[in-house]
């Protein structure tokens, strides 16, 4: 196997060594239950409370109890959407976008089955949110409303104007949720400035391990629990606290805060831009998907026309390069990415979209190697394609 070049950080990230180190004592020594009425367990309650405060600070939350630790971001998204609608006791409206993660689209679909009105707001060909359609939807729907719109898109990295979206929604009386999984650690998040009621983040997208998510619940938000059967998280999410992962997530939040202020994101953006410029120059008939001036710093989504994504990924994998694709075959379905289709990407390019997503561990050397390999693979696949004139 060649050396692994990991450019799939929007799928999952390397757990930071500092995070792993911070977690280990909570497996080996302090493995008690923080709810226990004995000192051995009780000793764990304080680190969990401190971790909750750290995460609250990371998001700009007023109070630690606004932070709910959950099993993953998908659970947190489900909790936000199904939990708010469950508190309505009447049919309401859910306004979301056409390019959400399935963790949001799935529960919205469930609510539609249950008789709620679900409105999906479209995007333009740069992947930018249609604010006009959103305002019209807010104005046209009486009764209780939930807005669930992502902060940054996982496939293209395009950032939505979440502050504006939240302000408009609040003015119309809606409860506001945002899936900030792809924004956390890449952009500064502060719920003091952005009036969302609910916000989701995932540990494993920001150098904590898989298996921990957070739902921020602004004080006063009416929401019912999804996981019943325990007093934990103030009765809002049952289940014994996942202590090591909570500690790990808090450490990751501290590291992310440091990285956001030490210029790491600028360096990542520079490497991403180098990769983008290099690929556009060496691969004819390629195009960037998503607004290039309005993206998180680590993401490049690029289509190579007339070739298919899965084949490209397998050839890159043989060369040690990890990327991902919105192509149908790679996604395990028959349809190409709903995000790429919602943007009206030409059908010649829909199946050949490749996502490269960097992290603060990505090196310039790795980008240079990638820039050598990708044009070779693209040329090789095009030699096979019946749609390229040879």
């Amino acid at each position: 196997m060649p050396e692994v070049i990991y450019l799939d950080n929007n799928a999952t990230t390397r757990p930071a060594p500092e995070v792993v180190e911070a977690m280990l004592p909570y497996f080996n020594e302090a493995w008690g239950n923080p709810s226990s009425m004995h000192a051995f367990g009780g000793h764990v309650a304080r680190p969990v409370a401190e971790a909750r405060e750290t995460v609250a600070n990371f998001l700009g939350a007023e109070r630690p109890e606004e932070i709910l630790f959950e099993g993953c971001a998908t659970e947190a998204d489900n909790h936000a959407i199904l939990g708010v609608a469950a508190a309505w006791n009447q049919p309401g409206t859910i306004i979301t976008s056409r390019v959400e993660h399935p963790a949001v689209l799935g529960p919205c679909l469930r609510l539609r089955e249950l008789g709620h009105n679900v409105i999906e707001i479209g995007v333009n060909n740069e992947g930018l949110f249609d604010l006009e359609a959103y305002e019209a939807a807010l104005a046209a729907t009486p009764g209780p409303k939930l807005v669930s719109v992502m902060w940054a898109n996982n496939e293209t990295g395009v950032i939505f104007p979440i502050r504006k979206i939240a302000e408009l929604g609040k003015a119309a009386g809606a409860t506001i949720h945002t899936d900030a999984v792809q924004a956390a650690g890449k952009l500064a998040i502060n719920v003091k400035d952005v009036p969302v009621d609910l916000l989701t983040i995932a540990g494993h997208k920001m150098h904590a391990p898989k298996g921990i998510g957070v739902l921020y619940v602004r004080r006063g938000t009416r929401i019912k629990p999804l996981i019943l059967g325990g007093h934990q998280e103030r009765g809002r999410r049952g289940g014994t606290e996942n202590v090591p992962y909570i500690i790990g997530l808090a450490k990751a939040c501290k590291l992310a805060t440091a990285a956001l202020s030490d210029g790491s994101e600028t360096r990542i953006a520079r490497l991403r831009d180098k990769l983008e410029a290099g690929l556009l120059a060496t691969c004819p008939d390629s195009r960037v998907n998503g607004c290039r001036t309005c993206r998180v710093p680590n993401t490049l989504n690029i289509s190579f026309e007339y070739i298919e994504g899965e084949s490209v990924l397998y050839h890159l994998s043989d060369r040690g390069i990890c990327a991902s694709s919105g192509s149908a075959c790679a996604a395990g379905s028959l349809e190409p990415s709903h995000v790429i289709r919602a943007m009206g990407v030409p059908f010649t390019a829909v199946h050949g979209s490749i996502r490269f997503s960097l992290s603060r561990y990505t090196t310039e050397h790795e980008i240079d190697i990638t820039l050598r390999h990708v044009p070779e693979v693209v040329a090789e696949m095009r030699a096979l394609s019946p749609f390229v004139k040879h």
Partner: protein
Amino acid sequence: MWDYTDTVMDHFRHPRNVGIIDNPDGKATVGSLACGDALTFMFKLDAEGKIAEAKFQTFGCASAVASSSALTEMVIGKTLEEAEKITNREIAAYLGGLPDQKMHCSVMGKEALEAAIHNYRTGEESVVQVHEEIVCSCFGVSREEIERVTRENNLHSVEEVTNFCKAGGGCGMCRDRIQEIVDEVNHTAAAAAAPAPAPKKMTVLQKIKLIEQTLEEQVRPVLRKDGGDVELIDVDGDVVRISFRGMCAGCRSAALTRDNLIATALHEFVDPAITVVME
């Protein structure tokens, strides 16, 4: 990653017989760019009528490339009568099997072979058997299929139909026709439920209801675990009068419970100005 066999990966990494043949005896292209799978297959016969040469070009995933490559190896040296007996399952078996979701790749190989033989025998470009109205020709979606997904999933827009069955997601030429079909299906469906009234400033009645709802949702589940309950006696401006029932009545920690639980809940969900008084 898909669980591809070593044979599939070998044919994908080192595809056999890639390219084109000048003046082939039979040639066909199946699939399309919009579908995400396409295969151009061609062959040349020798003097005895056996396939002497077979070549392909494929746009598609690893298993599509491998299936095409396998097909060329399988047909070379066979007569057309022998070759046309090859089934898609035999193509998959030649590769040591394909994942279930990838069997369509072997079907594409079989279709290309049939169409190329048909081309040799008749000179016709392709074989299309139309049994029903094909609305979306990019993805080959029929009217019946669009009607079914629209009905079963309560769809209202072309975009939704595209999400469910791909129809309209290619060139877009059929989008008006899809909208007509969707409208026809929905015409028979019942009208949407009456909209809820617009929210107004909270009246006293609404405030009482909200207090009752908050007690029910936030407070009673906790008290009931200990066999207790709570009753709302009166609401006078910001003063909320409460009475405990069951195990809670007369309990010395009742006052503490009231302060911590009821006041917190009412402050958070109704009004921060509320004062709770225990009867």
